[in-house]
């Protein structure tokens, strides 16, 4: 086949990488390029330099080193039995591409993943070489996120952690059964073993940093993972419990959910219709409830219906509140923070401001309205100085009144 130039390779390999949802560039330690010979800085807060029409932000240059692969995972467009065009970057090409984009402020850094060629160790070596060249040859101080390969040698994975800000391994599917069916060559136990090893290395790196200031940093932004939603039969409850387990056992920074989307050259065992994108959104909202609002996984699952699926028309926090109405209304002038965080419509920042303000005045409904986006949603669940919901909280049709207006269905929808 004819030799591909850089632009053609980029088109093929970025297209192959778009199913990875991760694009964060935050959570690492602060660095800048003052006094160095290279460019790049990280400021703690991630920056999204562009947004694509699918709503996802473009923060990093997200590419695969190659989309050839020896594995045959059914959900993956790059699987061995697929007929997609293949391409491959050299390490130097990735480095030059990253630097030229970064100089123009197009990206915050690099996200590098790869199909597996020759052997997991060989592929991991190539990935590490890209990061090493950026850090050592070019003194690049921006963000680097590396995908690690569970089957690769632990020493290679450790090297990746030395150069990268964040590392990640995908668990791919929420259940062992789904993994066996759709990715038969992948081993759930080996994936989890690799994540456990990464957690130990991160802990050790942080400990060394505490004792010796000059110790090298090890993946200061931690590790993350990703699950595919809707390719197998796992319910939302299964996914939430799985995510909670992963957070607890491996000290993950993030779990990403990627709704299964139709791919060209689809494999026969995939579902014939894709899950609604709203389902992915509800899972992210549940993730937030567990990480920032103090919900336990069992409580989030309690908001689901009998089949374990979260409602698509209302968010899980509202669903939980409607199900456990006996705990409401909450007095905003007296309630503890943990209870205020459970009021639908009150975010973390709003709760912080309520707690600060009520030292100086008894809050009225008008005051609450100024602190939140939508007072209509939370009125049934709070008591204020001049407001009581009376019978509103007990209405049978409360959910109907609070959920978004139903849209007219499209006459010519496909």
């Amino acid at each position, binding site marked *: 086949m004819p030799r591909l130039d*850089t*632009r053609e390779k*980029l*088109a*093929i390999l*970025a*297209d192959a*990488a*778009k*199913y990875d949802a991760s694009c964060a560039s935050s959570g690492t330690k602060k660095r*800048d*390029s*003052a*006094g*160095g010979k290279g*460019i790049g*800085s990280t*400021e703690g807060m991630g*920056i*999204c*330099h*562009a*947004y*694509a*029409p*699918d*709503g*996802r932000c*473009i923060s990093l240059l*997200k590419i695969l080193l190659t989309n050839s692969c020896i594995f045959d995972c059914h959900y993956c467009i790059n699987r061995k039995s697929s007929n997609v065009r293949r391409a491959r970057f050299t390490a130097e090409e990735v480095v030059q591409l990253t630097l*030229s*984009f970064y*100089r*123009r*402020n*197009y990206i915050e850094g690099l996200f590098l993943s790869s199909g597996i060629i020759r052997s997991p160790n060989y592929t991991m070596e190539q990935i590490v070489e890209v990061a090493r060249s950026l850090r050592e040859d070019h003194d690049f101080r*921006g963000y680097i996120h590396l995908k690690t390969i569970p089957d690769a040698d632990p020493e290679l994975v450790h090297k990746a952690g030395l150069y990268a800000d964040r590392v990640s391994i995908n668990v791919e599917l929420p259940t062992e*059964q789904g993994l066996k*069916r759709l990715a038969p060559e992948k081993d759930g136990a080996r994936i989890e073993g690799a994540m456990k090893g990464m957690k130990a290395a991160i802990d050790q790196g942080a400990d060394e940093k505490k004792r010796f200031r000059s110790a090298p940093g090890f993946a200061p932004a931690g590790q993350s993972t990703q699950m595919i939603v809707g390719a197998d*039969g796992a319910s939302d409850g299964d996914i939430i419990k799985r995510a909670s387990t992963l957070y607890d056992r491996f000290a993950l920074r993030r779990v990403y959910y990627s709704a299964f*989307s*139709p*791919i060209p050259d*689809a494999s*026969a*065992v*995939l*579902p014939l219709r894709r899950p609604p*994108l709203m389902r992915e959104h509800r899972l992210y909202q549940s993730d937030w409830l567990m990480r920032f609002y103090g919900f336990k996984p069992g409580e989030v699952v309690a908001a689901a219906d*009998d089949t374990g699926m979260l409602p698509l028309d209302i968010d899980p926090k509202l669903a939980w509140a409607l199900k456990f109405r006996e705990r409401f209304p909450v007095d905003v002038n007296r309630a503890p923070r943990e209870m205020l965080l459970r009021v639908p419509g009150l975010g973390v920042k709003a709760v912080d*401001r*309520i707690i*600060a*303000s009520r030292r*100086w005045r008894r809050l009225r409904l008008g*005051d*609450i309205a*100024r*602190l939140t986006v939508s007072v209509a949603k939370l009125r049934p669940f709070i008591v204020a100085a001049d407001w009581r919901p009376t019978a509103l909280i007990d209405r049978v049709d409360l959910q109907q009144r609070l959920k978004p207006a139903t849209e007219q269905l499209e006459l010519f929808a*496909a």
Partner: protein
Amino acid sequence: MRTAFLAHQEDFEGWRDAARSLALSRVPPSEIHWQVGDAPHDLFADEAVLASDDGPAFSVPRPFIELARSVVCHSDPERFALLYTLLLRLRAHPGAMEDAADPLLQRLESMAKAVCRDIHKMRAFLRFREVEGADEAGGTRYVAWFEPEHHIVRANAGFFVRRFASMRWSILTPELSLHWDGETLKEGPGATRADAPSGDQVEEVWKTYYASIFNPARVKVGAMLKEMPKKYWKNMPETALVGQLIAGAQAREAEMVERSRAKMAEGGLAEAVAAEKRLQPGGNALAAWEALVAEARSCTRCDLYKCGTQTVFGEGPLDARLLFVGEQPGDQEDLAGRPFVGPAGGVFDKALADAGVDRAATYVTNAVKHFKFERRGKRRIHSKPDGPEITACRWWLEQELALIRPPITVALGATAARSLFGKAVTISATRGKPHALEAGETWVTVHPSFLLRVRDNREEEYARFVEDLHAIGERAKALA
């Protein structure tokens, strides 16, 4: 009327000095005019702010200083007066900064938030372009043009210096320009867009990346516009592609569907396609069904798998126009691994024959796919499945329905009806007429095992069962 002079639009130090003097003199906000720059244009302004020694010095909390430093960068001319009003209030009530519900404080905080957002968007959406030989030394320089909403360029200078310290760059805006030579930051006068370079050779590569990273199966234009407002688009090269990407998204998804059909039509003739459809309906339906059967064998969704011999999956042609759902496999079905082969299956086959329905053209399955029983001596006596067990197995039934998409689905018995309807229903109330469900048209009748158990009116019940099946068969033909 007093006039306070400020050196430039975001002169925080000047504002602080003037505000301190004015506050010590207890001048009310309505009597102060805040003048940016040199030329006074208020004819009624008289005395300038003079140094004052009235009263003792006072301190303000640190959050106020941070808030003021941000708000001073806002583009609203009223910002100075509002900050001064809050400063006077702080002298009277030192805790005013913590009263987040206060309308004045909230307005100032929203102004600070707008400034912070503008700073962030400038860091994100500013685009450098490379200019060769622009310097005296003949080196490369990177030039960017940006149009901020607020007076934030000076506040953002530090960020770009830290990030691109070893790069020579310039940032041009309508208000002022910044130039960095690797060691020193210089400030220059405002510029126009024509002063910036018009293109860059890497932009085409960047556009290629932008087009490729977009997933056409999940268009969310609203989310994009919310985070990347259109006012920034003219200075970002990749936004030229947005229109065609959105228009192309539906086409690409339709193309994926069409390509699957084209594979079937590669034989060439419509008859070949029809023949292929008869042999393997639904394209990959047979492979998908086989995968479902294999996976169902290891199903552990409820506890019934612990007792039964095996999973008893559905059976029949995948282009069936009739799909019958029974309750669960019986003793013989559990051993054989096939549905409707026990005594009830015999009654079912006979009734279908009497009703004129071809059993071989129908698909038969069960709502619950494991045998639930209680042991009495050596015999295994049927036990009715519980709600959670029906719900757990419903996923498999939904997969079968999605795969086969029969025009008519028939629930045999209350358990099957519960699985299809999602709630408990009575047979007498739902029997004999079609119901529109998500899976399509659905009918309800008794399970053939009921005919084995009934004692008195067996012949009448059997005749009624046959009549139901006949009506359903006629309906299936009508829908063909």
